[in-house]
């Protein structure tokens, strides 16, 4: 317990994501990608080169990538639905709910995502019997749930942090106006806190999107699985470089704008105070 007690203090995070703006970056990434393709093309005079490989496999890989995006949206939805009430419990007045929700949050925040994914994939049955109803649990649903557990714990921390960042006089004023605790949170604290939750929530979504590739390890077909299948079906190891770069580029094109938008939002909040 002495080890775990060190976790009780929530880690303070100063605003470290200060601007690192460079609008030319996407251009640079695209150039690097084109250069690598050209480089591989140069060595492929006889057999079809990397451009053909990307034209042939690109749509399939893109389809797999879309499955990653779908998984991330579903996991984020489930994770937020689970995490928001957990975050409210973290600042509950009672000691017992606070203690339990704290332990749950710390556990899922500090366990590796991949281990949690394994846990859910292996230990949940393939169907659930609730009363007389049988609910099938396909692998992708289990994967969504497995990824949403760490998301929920992180959402809970975001909610707690934002709620606690609202100055104490707001609570006192609400109490003075005879608002109940839940009324205070719903009508006074949350509307102010939600703006502060948005940037870290978006940051978490980008991290989740990148983590969805983990589902390929537990045997679900995603962008990474399809890329590897494409490489092995051609039996052309030199195609690895452009095809993997293509997949990396897909994720970059999706996640980089989210990172930029997060920064922009943060800066706007900073200006308004």
């Amino acid at each position, binding site marked *: 317990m002495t080890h775990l007690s060190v976790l009780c203090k929530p880690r303070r995070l*100063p605003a470290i994501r200060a601007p690192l703006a460079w609008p030319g970056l996407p251009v640079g990434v695209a150039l690097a990608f084109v250069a690598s393709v050209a480089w591989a093309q140069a060595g492929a005079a006889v057999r079809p080169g990397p451009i053909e490989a990307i034209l042939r496999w690109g749509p399939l890989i893109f389809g797999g990538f879309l499955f990653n995006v779908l998984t991330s949206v579903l996991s984020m939805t489930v994770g937020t639905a689970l995490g928001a009430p957990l975050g409210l419990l973290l600042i509950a007045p009672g000691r017992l709910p606070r203690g339990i929700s704290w332990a749950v949050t710390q556990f899922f925040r500090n366990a*590796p*995502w991949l281990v949690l994914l394994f846990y859910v994939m292996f*230990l949940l049955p393939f169907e659930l019997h609730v009363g007389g109803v049988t609910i099938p649990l396909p692998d992708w649903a289990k994967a969504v749930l497995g990824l949403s557990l760490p998301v929920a714990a992180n959402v809970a921390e975001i909610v707690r942090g934002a709620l606690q960042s609202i100055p104490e006089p707001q609570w006192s004023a609400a109490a003075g106006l005879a608002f109940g605790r839940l009324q205070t949170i719903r009508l006074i604290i949350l509307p102010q806190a939600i703006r502060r939750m948005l940037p870290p929530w978006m940051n978490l979504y980008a991290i989740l999107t990148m983590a969805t590739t983990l589902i390929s*390890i537990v045997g679900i077909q995603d962008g990474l699985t399809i890329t590897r299948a494409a490489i092995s079906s051609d039996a052309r190891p030199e195609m690895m470089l452009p095809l993997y*770069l293509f*997949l*990396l580029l897909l994720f970059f094109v999706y996640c*980089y704008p989210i990172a930029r938008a997060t920064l922009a939002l943060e800066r706007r909040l900073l200006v308004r105070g």
Partner: protein
Amino acid sequence: MGGPIAGLFRWLNDVHGLNFSVFTDAYDAHRFLIGLRTTIGLSLSCMVFSIILGLLGAWLLSGPSRLARAAVRFYVQAFRNTPPLVQLVFFYFAIGSLLSGAREPLIGGYGWAVISFSLLAGAFNVEIFRSGVEAVPPTMVEAAQGLGFSRLQTYRYVLAPLGLRICLPALTNNLVNLVKTTTLAYAIGVPELLYAASQIWSEVLNVREMMYVLLATYIALVAILVWIMERWERALRIPGYTP
């Protein structure tokens, strides 16, 4: 294996059918400990390299060379906005196959895991160190200059010590993430904790028990790391000064 701990787990197995073979079977215990050692070794080497990369990047970002600054920004954004698993697979398979002209691969799975995770965590460390140095109040720098400190001296005696104290919590967070990320090395067959556990559970068929051992081990590793970092943070604290 003897001892009261093995006895307790043997009783759990006999009475409740919970087979914690890592505590009762010497062979499984040995495999698990090798996995634990690999995970700790991997984490420590990545910590060292990623901190070096972070310092180097932060130093280049404050330097005069435009090209170096652009290169560091490209590195940071490229590694922060792409999936760590694809980065690892990319290094291990794509770059690894380019480098292995002979039959023997130049760098093994462990080596590529160190390179890949160090680069990933290093990209975050660049940002952390840079923002730490930038968060030092400019009045401090002016005061140092007023006392006749040179640029290097200002950096050495004022910016670095204060910046380190400011960015320690963020660094702790990143190092915790690094320890959790080492599980990805499973995907390229590095015999770390997750890999060792999966070998045990596929032979002994005790998935549930191994999962609990695995989760408890990682939570303990993270707790120890956080404990050390917080002790360091407390030891560095300057009485009466809040950054």
